[in-house]
C-alpha cells in the first residue's frame, strides 16, 4: 500500500464532500450518467470510490466491485454505497497491488482517479492485467491542457495541489496508450481538461 497517497486521501476525506459534492457533481452529472450507462452485465471494477459520489449515476442492477486507497473515504461512502440498487461491494485497496487473477473483469470504470495514482502508467497496466482481453475501460478524468495559458497555470499549481490532492497536469490519454490500451474515443467535457476516455484492453 502506498502510505503517502493513503494518508493524503485519509486527510482529505472529512472535507471532501464540501468541495466536490454539489457544484462539480451537478456540473458533470449529464456526462457521468452517459459514461456510466455503458456499465454492462459482467464483472465491473470501479476505482476510486472516494466518498461514493459517483454511485448515484450507476445504472441499477449491475455487479460492481469498488476499490479505494483510503479507508476513511470508503467509510464516508457507506451510505451512498448501501443505497445502490444492485450488487455492489467496496474494498480498501491500492490499484498497484490488486490481488485479482488476470482477466477477471469485463469492464473497468474510473472517475477522477488517475490525477492521483502515483505512477499512472503502472496503475493502468495493473488495470489492463485484471481485464479480459478486449474488455472496456471507461474513464472520467481531468488532465493537463495543451493550450496556453491553461497549461502554464496548471503546471504552476500542480506542485502545490499534489500535496493536498490531485495533480492537475497529467497526460492521461497518452498514459492509457502507453499502458497498452487501444484508444477508442476521447470526448472533451470542458476545454481539453475534463474528458471521458474509452479504451479497450
Amino acid at each position, binding site marked *: 500500500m502506498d502510505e503517502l497517497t493513503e494518508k493524503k486521501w485519509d486527510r482529505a476525506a472529512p472535507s471532501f464532500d*464540501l*468541495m*466536490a*459534492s*454539489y*457544484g*462539480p457533481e*451537478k*456540473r*458533470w452529472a449529464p456526462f457521468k450518467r452517459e459514461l456510466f450507462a455503458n456499465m454492462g452485465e459482467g464483472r465491473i471494477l470501479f476505482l476510486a470510490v472516494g466518498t461514493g459520489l459517483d454511485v448515484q449515476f450507476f445504472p441499477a442492477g449491475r455487479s460492481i466491485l469498488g476499490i479505494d486507497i483510503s479507508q476513511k473515504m470508503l467509510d464516508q461512502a457507506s451510505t451512498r454505497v448501501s443505497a445502490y440498487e444492485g450488487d455492489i461491494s467496496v474494498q480498501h485497496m491500492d490499484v498497484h497491488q490488486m490481488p485479482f487473477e488476470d482477466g477477471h473483469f469485463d469492464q473497468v470504470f474510473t472517475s477522477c482517479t488517475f490525477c492521483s495514482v502515483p505512477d499512472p502508467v503502472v496503475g493502468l497496466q495493473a488495470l489492463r492485467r485484471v481485464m479480459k482481453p478486449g474488455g472496456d475501460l471507461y474513464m472520467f478524468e*481531468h488532465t493537463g491542457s495543451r*493550450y496556453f*495559458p*491553461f497549461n502554464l*497555470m*496548471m503546471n*504552476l*499549481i500542480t506542485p502545490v495541489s499534489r500535496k493536498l490532492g490531485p495533480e492537475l497536469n497529467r497526460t492521461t490519454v497518452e498514459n492509457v496508450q502507453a499502458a497498452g490500451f*487501444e*484508444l*477508442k*474515443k*476521447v*470526448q*472533451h*467535457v*470542458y*476545454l*481539453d*481538461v*475534463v474528458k471521458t476516455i474509452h479504451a479497450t484492453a
Partner: protein
Amino acid sequence: MLVEIRPYFVLGDLACNAAAGAVIGALMVLIVGPEWNMFVAMVIGTVVGTVLSIPLALLAAGMFGAMEVLVPVMTTGMATGMVVSAVATDAVLTTGSGAVLGLEVGVVVLIATYLANAVIRGKASRWTS
C-alpha cells in the same frame, strides 16, 4: 452542447469571474503605484493576481464546479493582475476604479474561455475507431 447553457452555472461563472476580477483589481491598486516601472509592475501583478485567484476559485468551486471554476478564475487573476498593474503605473487609480477594471477583465476572460471551450471541444473531440 459545446458551451455551458444552464443558467445556474452561467450566472455562477459570471459572478465568480466578475468578483475575482474586482477583488484582485482593487488589491492591485493598493500594491502598485504610478512610480513603478510598467514592466516590473506587470510581471509582479501577473504573479500576485494568479496566486490571489486560487483561494477565490477554491471558495467558489464547491458551489459551481471544479475545473470549470478554477481555470477561468485563475486566468482572470492572471489577466487582471497584469492589466490593472499596467494601468496603475500610468494613471492614478482608486480602488473602486481598479475594481471596475478588474470586473471588466473578468467578464472578458470568461467570454474568451467560453469561446475557447466551444472551439476546443468542437475541434478536439475525436473518434479513433
